[in-house]
């Protein structure tokens, strides 16, 4: 008989150090393991977060992969478990399983222009890759962040975006679907920002994360610009109960989104995007 393997289904308790409200329905938590130690992950990976007695949800990691002392998650409360997460306060505990899944291949973009295309809360899973790119800034050509939100009030990490925008080595463009209040910026879908270009298509890698339909159109816009579909990466969301290929829920065609994804190379899944209700 083989030696027993660690059970991937049992969570590890973490303590909430800080909670920051990003938007009316979105918040960012900083967590540390109760038993001490560090948490290592790759940008784009996710954890299963367990709220005591309530349930578990897959949430991408939104912190800096270089900082292993703290685990950062940005969550939008849209259901029972995320609402229970939202109700937790600093000092409270939650369970963590992970990290799971594939990651944004930041190093594969060395020598290239790097274009991040994010929609809504899809900026959260991209942020660790943006941090990693900035930490290795000299390894890239242009680094561009294109971000679309529903309204100006829905712009995630607004202060940070403004700070990034102030850097001379980073291009940040933000657009909203619907202007409200005193918004004087871009209005329209994020795909429009892709169409503006500003990168060398033949020498560009792009990481795209947002609603599925947005990713499909963004990838098509990049392709239209001349970016190789093998250099476009997307992050896919599916129902997940285990995070590690055992529960079957996240299947998307031949893929287990939790293990083969969530980050996929676009040319490998472009066909699947076209199939309704897959």
């Amino acid at each position: 008989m083989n030696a027993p393997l660690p059970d991937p289904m049992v969570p590890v308790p973490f303590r909430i150090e800080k909670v920051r409200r990003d938007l009316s329905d979105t918040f960012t938590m900083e967590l540390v393991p109760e038993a001490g130690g560090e948490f290592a992950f790759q940008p784009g990976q996710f954890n299963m977060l367990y709220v005591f007695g309530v349930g578990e949800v897959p949430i991408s990691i939104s912190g800096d992969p270089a900082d292993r002392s703290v685990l950062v998650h940005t969550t939008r409360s849209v259901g029972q478990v995320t609402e229970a997460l939202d109700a937790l306060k600093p000092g409270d505990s939650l369970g963590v399983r992970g990290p799971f899944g594939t990651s944004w291949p930041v190093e594969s973009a060395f020598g290239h222009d790097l274009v991040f295309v994010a929609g809504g809360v899809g900026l959260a899973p991209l942020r660790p890759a943006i941090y990693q790119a900035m930490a290795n800034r000299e390894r890239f050509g242009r680094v561009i962040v294109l971000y679309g939100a529903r309204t100006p009030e829905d712009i995630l990490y607004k202060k940070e975006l403004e700070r990034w925008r102030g850097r001379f080595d980073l291009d940040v463009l933000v657009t909203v679907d619907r202007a409200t209040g005193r918004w004087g910026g871009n209005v329209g879908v994020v795909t429009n920002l892709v169409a503006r270009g500003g990168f060398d298509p033949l020498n560009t890698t792009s990481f795209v994360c947002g609603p599925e339909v947005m990713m499909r159109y963004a990838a098509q816009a990049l392709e239209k610009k001349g970016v190789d579909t093998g250099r476009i990466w997307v992050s896919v969301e599916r129902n997940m109960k285990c995070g590690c290929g055992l529960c079957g829920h996240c299947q998307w065609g031949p893929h287990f989104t939790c293990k083969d994804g969530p980050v996929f190379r676009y040319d490998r899944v472009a066909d699947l995007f076209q199939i309704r209700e897959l």
Partner: protein
Amino acid sequence: MAQPNSKNAIPYLLDMDGLGALISALVRQGRQVIGPSLADDAVIYDDIDSIADLPAGWGADQSAGHYRLKRRDDQALFGYGLAPQGWKRQLYPPRQKLFAARRQDSGFAVEPPPPPPPPLALIGVRACELAAIDRQAKVFGDRSYADPGYQSRLANAFIVAVQCAEAQATCFCAAMGTGPEVSHGYDIKLTEIFVQKHHGFVAEAGTPQGAKLLKALKAPAAGAAEIKAAGLAVKNAARQDKHLDAEAARKLSAQPDHPRWDKVAERCLSCGNCTMVCPTCFCTTVEDVTDLKGDNAERWRKWDSCFTMDFSYIHGGAVRTETRSRYRQWITHKLSTWVDQFGEQGCVGCGRCTTWCPVGIDITEEAAAITGQERI
């Protein structure tokens, strides 16, 4: 666990007492012995204590959407075809506790898992069922994350395979290359035979544990007539009416828009029966429970079905809202994308999905229609 069998195992001849002694020996080893027995108008796999629990003289008629027990005209112990559910019930139970957690002054503590249950002995495992166990073992063990529970239950199980002597109307293991002959994955292999007035079993060991146990029974060697009868029994079981073109079915994933999906959706009730009886279906969901004070919480894993609306839910709604999409997911995964995932098909040809479908949808007919192999 059973390893690939040794080629030169000596076949023994077990009579009823010999089989009884085999079961007793497994009970004495402290094993939970599971075998076929009568319950709820069916032959099911459940706890047995002795040979007296086996369904002597009972058979079952199985066809699309139909299962009825019937009296056989002999006293065969294993003449019922297949139980409604295979051995995943024992190896991957429908409800499993994943962990318990207790609230503490600060935070909560996750309690260690309970001690493992006694090792299993499975009596009457068919060739297609061994293949199904293989398939699930790959799902739960061959990749970077394993299910330690499944692995240890299987590793510690003693498997007594019993070869089929006849096929049911829904069987197509021959087409899937999984049976009816038992070729590996067993500790002991039995073939039930009737030679003249003698009713017995040709028994072969597949592992050293199996050989040791058989030897201890002090059974006589099987004679040429018995060995021949065993061979004929398996040959008879290979005569199957149902056929599935396994090669063609691998291409199901290339047919997401076939009009047949709409046709089958008109019949499919989306009830999930096929997934509950399929011996390879492995999908599960989780359920969180707490006590009334909220101090103790448990997380349970339960079998789930890709036919439920909830299965594909992400905020905003289900991905697969239509029956057509869910049936397509199930059969495409079983016959096609399983190959991408695990290098082989997820269907072993047991025919349970056809038997237990309330409207009698036949997986072989649907696969043939969609991959263009339809026969009249």
